[in-house]
């Protein structure tokens, strides 16, 4: 009904737009810009210099870290999805509505606990003389090294992602048409086969999006690799924090950050395209 | 504009993008009239009502309210309260607060607000529910709250958008009586949008029949029933047998006609258009065994609706 924007509509619509333009989009653009700046006598200076890019992209250390981060994030995404799926399936298909609601509430709780505190808690569980190894010692096993290695890092990443992935998977499974499953059973499709031939394809978009979120979270996480993985050799996020906190070489950190954003956008685009591919046909 | 018209639609067109919702509305509504706008869903009847309420702006043409051109005037600056299909009662307010709402919006003081709202609660016989929540009321009670809320400013015109469609059949009939009596008592104009022929024909003084954005016919229920302007209206009213015939003249009970096969007949009603000429459509040829029973029915047309 309203054609020209009224004062009313502007007052409600614009503040968020201005805030996000000024404090979200602009800083990100600024980040790309400073990746071309130079640092002289500990001061950043506007420039159009490809030196930072050249320096970072020709370093073996960067590409090692890049590869390591990719592998870690991919493993975390796959692992979390695999652990989450049976749980999401059970929540969505086997629980009563009340139990479902409670389960969802319970799974929201971790979002409001400090990730740092949980990671610290894992340290106590996982150290060589920690709770888990002590428990294993009672039955004559171990000790197993669980801290400062890939295992530790993945424990942290799964801790970070699991509640979110279960929630997203459960929501998408809730939308799977129940009649399809009965139809499949009716057509003598076995229980397990029904899950993979009917349930998974029907919920594909949600499952892919959940895995994508796990990838994004793990890809950018610096806490698990640092405090559970030992931090050495570094991942990309650790590189950024190291470079940033140890001096004024922000342009080089910006190069790493821009590479990360580029990678995330590519992965996200590929995942979403894949998720919707056969659906749209 | 005739002297007693309260509403005038002057060549009003409403488009949503390429879609023409109302093609060319051109009619008047008299003071104190009960006008029904009737048609199937998507015919433009609700859009017509919303333009009158000021919730939509016409694409072209003019709307006059009480002699004043009201195009572009916001709905909150008109006094054209509406009763909604969903009723749209405020769930976070009590019954009394709902009824007081438009007085509050107009800056009426608290004491007067309460007193005027009470009067309408009384009139609608819902005083005992004044402090209840909307969720605690039955369908019929909500209906009365919606009416009281719309009428509390004592407007000259009340707009109703399929207000009875959520009620069950039994309650519908009762509310029709309530609405008819209310309109007669208050003497104000009701504009009533519905898809139901029985609602329109039983309550309205005049009926507007719309289809695909166009007004097909305006008239009293009897006129529309007896002399539908065209085949669409005849078919829309339903349950009729329609034959092509040549009209020879008037007979004692209706029209003397000759059918295509050469047989003669004397049907009572016909579709308007030709005057005794050739190739007119013949309308509502009764089956032989039905003709004796229905022949003498007269009145406002409502009793003729159901022919089997």
């Amino acid at each position: 009904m309203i054609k020209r924007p009224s004062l009313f509509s502007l007052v409600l619509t614009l503040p968020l737009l201005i805030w996000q333009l000024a404090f979200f989009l602009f800083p990100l653009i600024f980040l790309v810009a400073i990746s071309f700046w130079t640092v002289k006598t500990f001061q950043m200076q506007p420039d159009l210099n490809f030196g930072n890019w050249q320096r970072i992209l020709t370093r073996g250390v960067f590409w090692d870290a890049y590869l390591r981060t990719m592998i870690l994030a991919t493993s975390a995404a796959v692992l979390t999805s695999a652990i989450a799926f049976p749980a999401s399936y059970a929540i969505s298909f086997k629980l009563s509505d009340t139990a479902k609601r409670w389960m969802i509430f319970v799974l929201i709780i971790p979002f409001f606990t400090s990730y740092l505190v949980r990671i610290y808690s894992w340290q106590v569980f996982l150290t060589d003389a920690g709770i888990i190894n002590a428990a294993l010692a009672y039955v004559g096993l171990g000790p197993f090294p669980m801290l400062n290695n890939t295992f530790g890092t993945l424990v942290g990443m799964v801790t970070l992602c699991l509640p979110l992935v279960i929630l997203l998977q459960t929501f998408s499974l809730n939308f799977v048409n129940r009649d399809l499953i009965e139809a499949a059973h009716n057509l003598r499709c076995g229980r397990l086969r029904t899950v993979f031939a009917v349930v998974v394809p029907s919920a594909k978009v949600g499952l892919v999006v959940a895995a994508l979120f796990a990838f994004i979270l793990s890809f950018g996480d610096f806490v698990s690799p640092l405090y559970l993985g030992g931090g050495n050799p570094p991942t990309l996020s650790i590189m950024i924090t190291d470079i940033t906190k140890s001096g004024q070489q922000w342009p080089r950190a910006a190069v790493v950050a821009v590479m990360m954003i580029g990678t995330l956008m590519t992965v996200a685009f590929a995942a979403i395209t894949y998720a919707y591919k056969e659906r749209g046909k | 504009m005739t002297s007693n018209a309260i509403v005038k639609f002057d060549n009003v067109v409403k488009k949503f993008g390429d879609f023409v919702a109302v093609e060319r509305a051109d009619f008047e509504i008299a003071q104190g009239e009960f006008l029904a706008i009737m048609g199937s869903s998507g015919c433009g009847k609700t859009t017509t009502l919303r333009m009158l309420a000021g919730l939509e702006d016409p694409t072209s043409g003019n709307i006059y309210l009480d002699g004043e051109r009201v195009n572009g005037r916001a709905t909150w600056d008109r006094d054209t309260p509406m009763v909604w299909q969903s009723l749209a009662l405020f769930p976070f307010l009590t019954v009394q607060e709902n009824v007081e709402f438009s007085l509050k919006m107009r800056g009426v003081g608290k004491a007067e607000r309460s007193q005027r709202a009470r009067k309408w609660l009384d009139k609608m016989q819902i005083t005992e529910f004044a402090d209840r929540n909307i969720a605690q009321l039955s369908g019929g009670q909500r209906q009365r709250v919606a009416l009281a809320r719309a009428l509390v400013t004592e407007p000259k015109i009340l707009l109703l958008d399929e207000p009875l469609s959520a009620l069950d059949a039994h309650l519908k009939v009762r509310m029709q009586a309530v609405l008819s009596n209310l309109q007669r008592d208050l003497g104000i104009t009701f504009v009533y949008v519905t898809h139901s022929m029985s609602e329109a024909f039983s309550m309205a003084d005049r009926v507007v029949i719309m289809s695909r954005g166009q007004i097909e016919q305006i008239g009293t229920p009897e006129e529309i029933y007896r002399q539908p302007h065209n085949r669409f209206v005849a078919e829309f009213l339903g349950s009729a047998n329609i034959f092509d015939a040549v009209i020879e003249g008037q007979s004692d009970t209706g029209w003397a006609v000759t059918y295509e096969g050469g047989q003669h007949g004397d049907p009572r009603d016909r579709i308007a258009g030709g005057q005794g000429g050739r190739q007119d459509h013949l309308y509502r040829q009764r089956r032989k065994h039905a003709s004796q029973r229905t022949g003498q029915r007269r009145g406002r047309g409502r009793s003729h609706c159901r022919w089997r």
Partner: protein
Amino acid sequence: MGNENKLINALLFVHIALCLIFIFAPIAGSFVFSLNSDRFPSLPLGEFSFEWYRLIFNDPLVWSGFFNTLIVGLTVAVIATLLGFGGAYADFRYNFFGKSIYLALALLPPTIPVVIMGLAMLAFLSRVNLSGTTISVIIAHGVMCSPFAMAIIRLRLSQMDPDLEAASWNLGGNEWATLRHVIIPFTKPAIFAALFITMAVSFDEFAVAWFVSGLNETLPVKILGFLQGQVSPRINAIGSLAFLSSMTLIVLAQLLLRTPGAGKK
């Protein structure tokens, strides 16, 4: 149903239980460790002790961190909820050119890794001489929290009969009056939920705050400091207290969202 398999169901429920144990072990662990006298807790657990709580209560740096967190959290909650309300209403009510870009801009911040957000914020805010201030943390958290507020309020608006707003206009309320007397009362539970939840998000955010806060550290940044320095079970004590306060906020938010429209007795 005839084709349910009891064994498979039992295994599935065991799996859920294991997932929950995995998720809640570190949370429960930090509670237990915070009340344990050992610096490096292991089996068997040491004695019950309030030592770590006593230490943090006597630490002025923890208190200053707490007050910074509180100031930031309260301000962010109000700002993010106001911004989110506007965004939610814009999405609910209007169709305009570039709306999908508007929505993307409004909702994308949580998908950007916090280190990148942190670096971008730091670079930008130090350029405008705001880095190292509490304001910079508020700005950054405003960006990160408003999507949550927007989502919560948008969800509530989608439960509203769209005729309600039009009915109010029709009854003589202009857009402002309708906002005040209809939209806000209707979304009130969601507004409070948004306030609590954005506050809770801000309370726990450490990464971006660490980048931009300088000396005005919030409590989570303090924890990060503890983690980097000597291992200290004080983290558990702070974490447990923070968890309790966050949970209080969340439960309040839940209670508000569960009884919509029941404002009156």
